[in-house]
C-alpha cells in the first residue's frame, strides 16, 4: 500500500520533481557517509536483497491489490543506509517493468525507505524491550507500514489541485449524461461529483491497508523466525532468548 502506483503524468511536476531532488540528496549523503570499501563489499548483498524485494512485489494478492514489500526485513538485514539505496534500485527496476511510473521513482523511494529505515529502528527498539523476535518483528513491520502508507496518502493528497485540473481540462469528459431534472440540480450535482475526494480514497486504502499491514507483519515475523533458526548471525542480535 505504501508504494505509489500512480502513472507518469498524474502527479504535478513540482511534486515528483521535489521527490527526485530529495531522494537524490539523501542518496548522495548516504553514499558519502558509507565507507567505499564497505559499500563495495556489500553491493552484491544490496543487489540480492533488492532482487528479493522485486520478487516480493511480483506476488500479487489480487482481491486487495496488495503485494508484500519485504522492505522491513530487508532493512533489518541491510541497515538504515543501505536500505535507502536498495529501495532506490528496487523502484528503478520496478518502473522499468512498468510497475509504477518513472517520474514517481523519487517519491516511491522516499515512502518505501521510510518503511525500511523505520522498520530497522523499531525492530531494534522492540527487540531491546520485548526480547522476543516474533512480536518485535511484527510490531516493527506493522507500525512502519502504517507510517509509510500515510506518507503515501500525504503525497497523493498533495496533488489534489492537479487532479482537479486534469478533470476540468476536458469539461465534462467525453460522455455526457443528462439525467437530472432541472438545470440547477445538474450543476450542483456536477460540482459535487467533480470534486476530488481524498477522504473516499483514504476510506478505501486504510481498511485494505490494514489487511496488508497484518499480512506483511505476520509474513515478516515468520521470515525473521526462519532466518533466526538457520542463520541468526544475519539478524545481528545479542545472544538472548527469542
Amino acid at each position, binding site marked *: 500500500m505504501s508504494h505509489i*502506483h500512480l*502513472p*507518469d*503524468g498524474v502527479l504535478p*511536476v513540482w511534486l515528483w520533481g521535489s521527490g527526485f531532488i530529495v531522494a537524490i540528496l539523501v*542518496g548522495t549523503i548516504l*553514499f558519502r557517509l558509507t565507507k567505499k570499501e564497505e*559499500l*563495495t563489499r556489500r553491493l*552484491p*548483498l*544490496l*543487489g*540480492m*536483497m*533488492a*532482487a*528479493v524485494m*522485486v*520478487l*516480493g512485489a511480483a506476488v*500479487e494478492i*489480487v482481491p486487495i491489490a496488495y503485494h*508484500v514489500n519485504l522492505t522491513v526485513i530487508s532493512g533489518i*538485514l541491510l541497515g538504515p543506509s543501505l536500505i535507502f*539505496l*536498495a529501495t*532506490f*534500485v528496487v523502484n528503478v*527496476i520496478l518502473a*522499468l*517493468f*512498468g*510497475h*509504477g*511510473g*518513472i*517520474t514517481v521513482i523519487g517519491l516511491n523511494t522516499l515512502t518505501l525507505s521510510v518503511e525500511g529505515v523505520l522498520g530497522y529502528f523499531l525492530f531494534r527498539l522492540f527487540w531491546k524491550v520485548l526480547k522476543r523476535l516474533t512480536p518485535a518483528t511484527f510490531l516493527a513491520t506493522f507500525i512502519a507500514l502504517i507510517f509509510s502508507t500515510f506518507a503515501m496518502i500525504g503525497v497523493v493528497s498533495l496533488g489534489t489541485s492537479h*487532479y482537479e485540473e*486534469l*478533470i476540468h*481540462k*476536458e469539461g465534462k*469528459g*467525453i460522455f455526457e449524461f443528462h439525467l437530472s431534472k432541472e438545470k440547477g440540480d445538474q450543476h450542483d450535482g456536477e460540482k*459535487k461529483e*467533480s*470534486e476530488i*475526494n*481524498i477522504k*473516499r*480514497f483514504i476510506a*478505501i*486504502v486504510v481498511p485494505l491497508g490494514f489487511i496488508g499491514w497484518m499480512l506483511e507483519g505476520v509474513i515478516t515475523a*515468520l*521470515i525473521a523466525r*526462519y*532466518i533466526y533458526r538457520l*542463520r541468526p548471525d*544475519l539478524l545481528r542480535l545479542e545472544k538472548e532468548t527469542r
Partner: protein
Amino acid sequence: MIQLSYLDYSAVEGKSFLHRLSPKLKIIGMIFVLLGLVTLGNILGLLLLYGVLLALFFISRIPTKIFSLTLYPLIFTILFIFISGFQIHFILLVFLKVLCGSTGVVLLLATTPYPSIFSVLGRVLPSSFVTALFLTYRSIFILLNILEETRHALYFRGGFQWRHPWRSLINISNAFGHLIIKGIDASEKMYESMVLRGFKNKIYYRRD
C-alpha cells in the same frame, strides 16, 4: 515475474529494426514518451501515443506473452479511480497514461539487452548505483531459479491452500526466508568471484 526471462530473450534474440536501433536513441525515445505523458492532458493525444507504441510493439515482433506485462499496473490504478468520484474523463486519462508508460518501458526492455541500458545509464549516474542496478537484475535471475526449486518443495509441503491459511502463511514465509538465505549465500559467492576477476566498484561493459 517469470516473463522476465522472455523479456530478456526477446531483447537479445530479436532482429527487428527497433532491436537494431542504438540503445541511446531508444532511451531518448522513452524520454519523449515520458514528456508526452507529463504534458498531454487530452484523451485523443494519449490514444494516438498509445496507438504508436502498440504499433511499434507488434512491428518489433515481441512475444505476445510479454504484452500482459503492460496491463499489470492497471490493477493498482483502479484504487485511484476513487479519488476522482468516478469521472469517466479522469479514469480514461489515468488508464491511458498507465498503458502508455508501461508499454513504453516494456518496449524498451524487450528490444534492448539490459547491459546496454545500464551502460548508457552509467554515463549519467554514479557507478555504484549502476553496479547495484546491474547486480539486482542479475540477482533476480539467480533468485528465480531458487524460487522454482522452492516452489516444488513448497508444493510437496502443502503449498498454498485457502482451507489452511495459517499453514499456508508459514509455508510462504519459509519460502521467502529460504530465498533470502540462499540469496545471501549466492551474493557472498558472487562477491568473491567478482573480486577474483578484479572488481573495483564498477562493472565495465563491452564498449567501455
